[in-house]
């Protein structure tokens, strides 16, 4: 694999692009019409110069990266071996993008989507590309999260799996190889936890603040509700809806989905609007009676363990691999299996 195209310059697109800059690929960046290509180019050149000055990058490498085309014209992707899209989480937009690109890029090019909730089988532009359309779900921040979910469809060829696996190893990313029945497994595991935590709050076992505090103390470096606010309530809502639409027990998730919908209707999109589950700035301190705390922690621990076991069995993942992925995803010290 020699040439890689990144599509989109949001948080994930720029994260993937900047991560790949450090490897020996030819890169192309395709941006939307709203992007300021001059500004992006200037930022890239400044970064290259600073890296050379600091001794992090060699002159030769800097010179090569400076040649990177940054364009709004999709034909710059024509001779790419792999394109990775990271445009907004909208099925119609992504389908149109891949359909348009199908006529532009060479037949051998692999189409990858960084979607966090849309399966690659829904994005394939047609038969000739369906064996080369996959999901490559990187996590934010790309440079720090060492795990990628590599999702295939029924049509993905063995050659595509081999080429992409080799690419992921080359860029030093661990990956979970998942079929589209088990896609977005890490987010789905966390969704079970978030859903149960919300359920306990609605049962008045504790307040949101108390829940987030105990989750930070006993499970993850972040709380459930402040995580949603940080991601964005609208983004969470889209993803959660996509995850649960084919579940047999959608009713179980409905209260949480309704809460996210209500917050969106109120314009409470999370941190970016200074209001979501919480109002910001938030003091976010609360204590809980030790007995109540112990009961909730046990309850959530059971939810967490059941969910991890169920998803690992469904995706046929060995315990070691599941644990490693969870450690990378949640920034925890050890996995639960």
């Amino acid at each position: 694999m020699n040439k890689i195209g990144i599509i989109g310059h949001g948080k994930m697109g720029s994260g993937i692009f900047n991560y790949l800059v450090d490897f020996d690929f030819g890169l192309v960046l395709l941006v939307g019409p709203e992007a300021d290509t001059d500004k992006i180019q200037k930022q890239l050149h400044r970064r290259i110069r600073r890296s050379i000055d600091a001794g992090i990058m060699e002159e030769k490498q800097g010179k090569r990266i400076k040649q990177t085309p940054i364009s709004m014209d999709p034909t710059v992707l024509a001779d790419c071996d792999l394109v990775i899209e990271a445009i907004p989480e909208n099925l119609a937009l992504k389908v149109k993008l891949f359909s348009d690109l199908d006529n532009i890029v060479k037949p051998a090019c692999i189409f990858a989507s960084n979607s966090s909730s849309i399966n690659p089988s829904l994005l394939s532009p047609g038969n000739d590309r369906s064996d080369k359309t996959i999901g490559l779900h990187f996590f934010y921040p790309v440079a720090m999260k060492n795990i990628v979910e590599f999702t295939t469809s029924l049509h993905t060829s063995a050659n595509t799996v081999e080429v992409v696996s080799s690419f992921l190893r080359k860029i030093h990313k661990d990956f979970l190889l998942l079929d589209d029945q088990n896609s977005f497994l890490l987010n789905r595991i966390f969704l079970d936890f978030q859903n149960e935590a919300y359920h306990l709050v609605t049962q008045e076992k504790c307040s949101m603040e108390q829940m987030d505090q105990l989750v930070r103390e006993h499970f993850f470096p972040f709380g459930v509700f402040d995580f949603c606010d940080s991601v964005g309530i609208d983004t969470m809502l889209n993803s959660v809806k996509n995850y649960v639409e084919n579940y047999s027990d959608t009713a179980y998730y409905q209260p949480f989905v309704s809460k996210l919908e209500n917050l969106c209707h109120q314009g409470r999109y999370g941190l970016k609007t200074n209001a979501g589950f919480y109002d910001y700035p938030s003091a976010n301190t609360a204590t809980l009676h030790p007995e109540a705390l112990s009961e909730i922690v046990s309850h959530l621990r059971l939810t967490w363990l059941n969910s991890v076991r169920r998803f690992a069995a469904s995706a046929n993942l060995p315990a070691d691999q599941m644990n490693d992925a969870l450690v990378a995803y949640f920034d925890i010290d050890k996995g639960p299996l």
Partner: protein
Amino acid sequence: MARITENTKNEVREIVYSFFAEECEVDRSQINDNTNIIKDLDGDSLMFLELIEIFKKKYTLDIELKVIGKYAVKNPVATIGELIDMQLLIIEHEKRLLELEK
């Protein structure tokens, strides 16, 4: 474990201030320790990563990005001053950074 001298502190401060002045296209005099990196300078996590790489190289630090990531999730930085303090902790403790929380 490195000893943080006044010289190190001044070096780190100089690099961080110069970096943000250039990258965010603002006059250096407009930046102080209380300047909010995202709200006031429109900065982002990529800048944070680049600075880490610069300091890793400059001080030959033995620390993985994921260790810094773990620490940063629990101890987020918002201002230039907080960022400088975190960089100094990284230089001082390197891969033992997370032990600070125990």
